[in-house]
Every structure is written in C-alpha cells, then in structure tokens.
C-alpha cells in the first residue's frame, strides 16, 4: 500500500501505532497497531487503530474522516438517515417544529431532477466537511474550526451567533438555533440558542470509537447501504477501497474545497 500512497500510507500509520503502543493503554490495540505496521495488514485491525484512539489522545491529522454517498442506492422517500441524526443529536425533526423555517436541520434529503431528461436523483445533503472550509475562513472568533481529523465543528463556547458562516457555506449546511432548547439537549451533544450548528460527523460517536455515524448506521439498517463512513487517509478502509472502485464527485467541485463527503451517481 505504501507504494501507492507514499504520503499518507503506512509510515504515518506505523508511527501512530507506535505512539499507541508506547502509551500501553490498550494492549489489544497496541498489538493490532504493531501488526498493522507489517505489510498486508488486515483492514479491520487498521481501522481499530484509528477508531480505538485512547481517550487521552488528541484527534490526529493522520486520519481524515469522510463519507461516501451512493445516490444510486439512496431510497426515494426514505428519511431514515435524517431521523437517526435527529435522534442521536437531539434536534427536533422539522415536521414536528412549530417554526419550520427556523428549525435547524443538520441533514436533509435533497431531491434532484434534470429538467431536460426528467432524470431523478435523491441524496442526503449535510456539512461536507471541506478541507478548505469557507465557514472557518469567515468566522470572526475562530469558533468555526476544522479538527485535526478533518471534522468541521462549531465551538459553541466562542460562537457569537453572527451567522457569517451561514452566509459563506455553499451547501446551506448550517443552522442557527433560533429558540430556547429548555434542557432537551443530549448529554453528549451540547447545542444552544443563538449559536450556529451543523453536522458533526457524530463526533461523539467517533471519539467513542464507534467508527461510524448515526446516519450511516440507519442507512445500513434500512438495507439501502448507500452510506459509507471511514478514514479516507487509510488506503485499506472500506471507504477508501470504494472510492478507488467507483467514480465519485464533489458537490460544487468548481469551488475546489476538497470535500469530506463524496457522491456517486450524481
């Protein structure tokens, strides 16, 4: 693998594995990491290293979390990913909101139609976790930021609610919390009035070592299997293998933002 990806392949991985090992926090992971350093390591074990990051270890730029959306498998009328996101992250589904235009939507199903050919496509749209995020560029306080592992987040401790990031986002991925949440938040997902929010790639799950997101789990459970989540820097991960095999596109690729979400079938 290292021959194919000299910049992002095994050496970095090996180093990460060694760090893990030296910390001697989790024997299994240490062993898996050492094994991963050897050639032709089983993908599962590699993923274990990335996912099973010890809790005292910071998110690493050796990892880049990403998502593959296969629009050809995405079910028309299926809303399972949206429901799962709302349940996991504690935002009220728009249908239940008293103020639908002001209700936050972290993920939404987008229905597309070519006016000429009548070809229809549908897909989930959410924060694209750009490598060059415009929301991070414009944020006056630095509250909007990209974590080392590529996840774009809002630090609600420094967000002043200016909404400049919402003006800057080409994907309409961000929402302002317009009203009091009255302690309805999930303990793992703080969110609050006057701050901007968006998809976090279920960062609480990622940090827990789940290695997946609520929407992906729901999509798999529904049998559509349209979503794959994983480390795009790891050549052996499922997402990397699929991205090598099938043609994918980035939405508004003309903006050259290097997105963390890639679409097939658009």
């Amino acid at each position: 693998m290292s021959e194919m990806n000299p910049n992002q392949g095994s050496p970095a991985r090996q180093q990460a594995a060694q760090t893990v090992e030296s910390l001697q926090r989790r024997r299994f992971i240490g062993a898996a990491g050492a094994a991963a350093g050897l050639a032709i390591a089983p993908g599962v074990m590699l993923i274990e290293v990335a996912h099973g990051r010890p809790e005292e270890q910071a998110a690493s730029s050796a990892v880049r979390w990403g998502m593959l959306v296969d629009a050809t498998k995405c079910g028309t009328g299926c809303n399972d990913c949206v429901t799962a996101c709302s349940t996991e992250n504690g935002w009220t589904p728009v249908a239940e909101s008293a103020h639908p235009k002001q209700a936050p939507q972290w993920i939404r199903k987008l229905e597309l139609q070519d006016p000429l050919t009548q070809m229809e496509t549908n897909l989930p749209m959410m924060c694209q976790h750009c490598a060059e995020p415009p929301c991070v560029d414009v944020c006056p306080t630095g509250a909007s930021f990209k974590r080392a592992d590529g996840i774009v987040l809002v630090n609600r401790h420094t967000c002043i609610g200016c909404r400049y990031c919402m003006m800057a986002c080409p994907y309409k991925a961000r929402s302002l919390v317009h009203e009091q949440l009255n302690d309805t938040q999930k303990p793992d997902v703080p969110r609050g009035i006057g701050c901007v929010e968006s998809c976090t790639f279920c960062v609480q799950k990622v940090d827990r070592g789940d290695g997946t997101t609520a929407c992906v789990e729901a999509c798999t459970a529904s049998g559509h299997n349209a979503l794959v989540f994983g480390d795009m820097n790891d050549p052996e991960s499922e997402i990397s293998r699929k991205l090598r095999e099938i043609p994918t596109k980035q939405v508004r690729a003309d903006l050259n933002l290097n997105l963390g979400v890639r679409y097939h079938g658009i």
Partner: protein
Amino acid sequence: MASITFREVEGSSLKYWLLFGGLGLFVLFGALSWNYMHHYGHVVTGMDNQIVWGLPHVFAVFLIVAASGALNVASIASVFNKPMYKPLAPLSAILAIALMLGGLLVLVLDLGRSDRLIVAMTHFNFKSMFTWNVFLYSGFFALVGIYLWTMLDRTVKSYSKAAGTAAFIWRLLLTTGTGSLFGFLIARELYGTAMLAPMFIIMSFAYGLAVYLMVLAAAYSWTGRALGDTVMQRLRYLLVIFVAAVLYFVVTYHMTNLYFTKLHAVEAFILRDGGIFTTLFWFGQILAGCVIPLVILLTGLGRQRSWIMIACALVILGGILQMYVTIIGAQAYPLDLFPGLNEKSSFFDGVVHSYMPSVPELFLGLGGVAVALLVTTFAVKVLRLLPESLDDATVAKLEH
C-alpha cells in the same frame, strides 16, 4: 482668510428637548426590541435559516457606510484644502462617529449571542473579513476622534491636516472592508466580487453626504442660524456627482453579471422576476434613489432648498432599499448546489425564500438611527461644532 466663530447650540428650547425626547424614545424602543429578541431568541424575528441576515443588518450596514461617507465633507476641507468646507468639517466628523456608533450597536445587538461581545473582542481569526472590520471600526473611532480634537482644540490645530488625511485613508479602507464582507463570500452568486468594495465606497459618498446635508439644514433651520445658498448649492453639485457615480457602478455591476450565463438566473431574479426585490430595485434603488434625485438636483428644482432636502431624503431611502436588495435579495435567491438541476427538500432548497421583517427588527434598526441622531443632537449642544453663521457673505470671505 476670515475666521469663523463656532458656537454650541443653546439647546434649552422646548423644541430641542422634544427632539431629544423623541429620539430618546426610539432609542428606548430599540433597547426593548433587543431585550425581547435576546430573551426569546431569533425565533421572534422574521429571520430564519434561509434569510440569516435581516433588517437589522440592512440598517447597520447602511449606517456604517453612511458614517464613513459623512466624513467626506471634512476630508474635502483638510485633505483637499478647500477653504469653504472648513467650517463644515466638525459636524461632518461628529456625524461620522455618531452614525458609526448607531450602526455598530445594531450590528452587535443582532448577534445570536450579543451577551458575548467580549469574545468578539478577544478571539480573532485574521482570515475573516469580520475580524478586520472589528479593527477598522475601532480605528475609525480613534482616528476621527483625534481629527475632531485637532479641529476643536487650538493647541493641536497644526496636526489637523495629518489627522484628517489619516482619517480619510482609514475611511476608504473601512468601506473597502464593509464591501468586502460581502465581496469575500464564495457561496452566493451576487457576492464574491471585488466590485463590491469600490461600489460601497462610492455609495458611502452619496449616502453620507445626503445625511450630512439634511442634518446641516435641520440644525441651521431649527436654531435660526443663517445658512446661505453658496454652501447648499456647492454640496448640491457634489451630491450629483456621487449619485451619478453610484448609478454608474450599479449599471456596470449588473451588466457584467448579465454577460455570464451562469449568473443569468440570479440577475433575472433581481431585475425581472424577484417580486418585492425587483420592485425595490427598480422603483426604490434606481428610480427613487438615483434617477429622481438626479433630475431634481440637475434641474431648476435644485435651486430650492426644500427640493434639495427631498432629493437627500430620496437618496437615503434609496440607500436603505439598496442595502435591502443587496443583503436580503441575495439571500432570497436559493443556493445552486447542483447547477442545471431542479432541487427540492425540507430545507427550502431550490425555492425563493420569503422574508417578512418583524416589528422588533424594525425598531432595533430605527434605534440605531436614533442613537446616531441623539449623539449628534447632544454633541452640538456641548461642543463648538457649528459655525454661528454660514451665510453667503461669511462663506465668500473664506474663499478669498
């Protein structure tokens, strides 16, 4: 060169206190509106996740742009050495500070977390145009304040030109920054162009001068001081040049966009199909804000002071509507995630967004205007900003 006597307005008449109280009432309404919006959140406004910047931003950006423009009269005096403008300069400087204060208040009180202003003052991201504006606004207060000091205090009078020049350069940078708030956005078709920076500068010239002229005429009329036609006619032709230049920039901007096929749809939205935005653009921004004032100012009507006032009021109205079209119109047009395809979703993709400003938003904006005027009203009472007389004879002496 004859010297000019500056004197405070007496400010003890019933009329003065009525004005003061009336403006104070609007400041109070503004404060109550903020309290209401802050308590319940933006849910009580017309803003939503589609139109994220609403009427408060229209007022705030207008006031900030007008603020830097209001300083122009002073700049003409000290930077370009026109003696006739010298007695007009102190009012110009105080108006610039007052308008800036009003605009900034509206801007920060509309924040989702306006209680966290201290965060905006202590955490900076220097890639953000907003951050740069924080410094540009603070610097503006400082430089114009110093400039005003050099005009009012004889002991530092020799620094007046240097201070005036610094303030002039700073105000050009400031309006470049304000225009670039929009110019540095890639997401929306109507933004993301360097045109916005110079266009905002020329707009600031026009709006600022219109505000200045109205405040000047009102101050002299209400205090019974003499204001000769020489001053008014000179400023009248200056306004003509600025308004014509605004029109030129607006036409160039839209003509450029119309040449690019990818921008045809959004231009069609603003110029033809945008409903309220199209109406506001043609009848508000273009007709009321540019064409009618030009007709008034360039014909015999412009010799009458009341018609000059009408022209100024129209320029201001047109300016506010221009901000409405620029800020809200650009957001009303949906983001084009998949060019060439029709889009539909629960998040209002692919549909034109509607916006109905709420009462608190309007009063928050008007509160900013009231703050600006209240500061000015108070300043002319406590500082020697206005010449005792600006009649033609006094002004004529200056030029010889």
